């Protein structure tokens, strides 16, 4: 998979280089319009600009649907499917974190659990889904558990889970993203997704974050 994507991206880079005007061509008016068009190419776009860089929800829905169908053919059971989705999300999360840290203006590194979770709750959610998550809670029973809830997750907007796999939550993909971001910021944890419907929001998904022991120990020292 990696080889094919890298090959195709290299291809597009090459074709782009061929289509770009030759050096010095930027001076003429027509060439500057031409080069402006060329900058709409995703590889040419400035990384800091997020406006207008949104992806069509329909395109995403179709791709996610294909991802699910592809994964479903290659797993045994729902647990396995969720694990696979988590892995796919992890790959997204690693990249998303890189981009977000690059874009983040205050250049701050989160060292506390709450700050980190708040970063995910607001910044990450806003970048990925165009809105903040709906709640961030701490478990009353377990010291090491936190929950981020989304009342209407974009990811499963068009998905209806059939009865025979009713335990499945496609939010496992989101959980994977969160896990990667937590891992990348040195907050190793286990992240899972659960469906917790409330009045008016039958698709409400809760991302459960279970922090590793070392994170809690460090948190104690920082107090």
């Amino acid at each position, binding site marked *: 998979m990696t080889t094919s994507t890298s090959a195709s991206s290299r291809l597009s880079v090459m074709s782009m280089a061929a289509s770009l005007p030759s050096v010095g061509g930027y001076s003429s008016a027509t060439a500057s319009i031409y080069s402006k068009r060329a900058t709409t190419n995703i590889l040419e776009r400035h990384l800091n600009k997020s406006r207008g860089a949104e992806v069509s929800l329909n395109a995403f829905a179709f791709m996610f*649907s294909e991802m699910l169908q592809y994964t479903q053919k290659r797993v045994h059971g729902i647990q396995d499917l969720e694990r696979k989705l988590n892995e796919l999300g992890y790959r997204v999360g690693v990249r998303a974190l890189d981009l977000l840290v690059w874009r983040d203006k205050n250049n701050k590194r989160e060292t506390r659990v709450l700050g980190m979770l708040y970063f995910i709750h607001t910044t990450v959610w806003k970048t990925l889904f165009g809105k903040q998550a709906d709640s961030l809670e701490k*478990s009353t029973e377990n010291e090491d558990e936190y929950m981020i809830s989304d009342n209407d997750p974009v990811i499963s907007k*068009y998905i*209806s889970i059939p009865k025979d796999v009713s335990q499945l939550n496609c939010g496992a993909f989101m959980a994977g993203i969160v896990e990667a971001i937590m891992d990348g910021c040195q907050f190793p944890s286990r992240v899972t997704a659960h469906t917790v419907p409330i009045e008016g929001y039958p698709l409400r998904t809760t991302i459960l974050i279970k922090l590793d022991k070392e994170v809690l120990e460090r948190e104690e020292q920082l107090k």
Partner: protein
Amino acid sequence: MIFSIYIINKAGGLVYNKDYSEGLSKLTSNEYLVLAGTFHGVHAITSKISPVPGSSGIEMLETDTFRIHCFQTLTGTKFLLVADPQQPSIDHTMKKIYECYSDYCVKNPFQNPEMPIRSEQFDVHLLKLVKSVGGLVVSHTLQQQQSQYNSNNNQYQNVQPYNTSSVDPSAQGSSNLPPTLPNIASSGLGLGV
């Protein structure tokens, strides 16, 4: 008033049927399949016998008490809308139904193309759509299902950010999923004519 909606796949099999009005005489599930298959055949014949080349098939069938409107997508899926002769803006309704179908069936990874539609969200949104275009006489069963659907979700209270009264998702799990609306085209396919 909209009486019923049927969806016929490109092979002429009924993949979805639902009634939205009370007091309609019911057919058996087999008769529904025959109806769909027959319409599929008639549609094909009408487009062939047309004196004008490249004509589409039957688009509307009118009687004193109802009209059957048919909309065929580019992929050959047919949407049948049984409605009152006075029902306005059928074209718009049809487009909305198609939109609903492409959103909640085509984009649903658990929905196999050309197979009977079992998509909870499709049911919910189609019901909402039919209600919005007016004239839905909510039948007893539908009302019951709807209230059951709502009460099932009542047990969870709204929680605010950063509060400590939290839910344990692992305990509640997904066993409390709302029930799907019933009366989806029960089964069977591929009844050609």
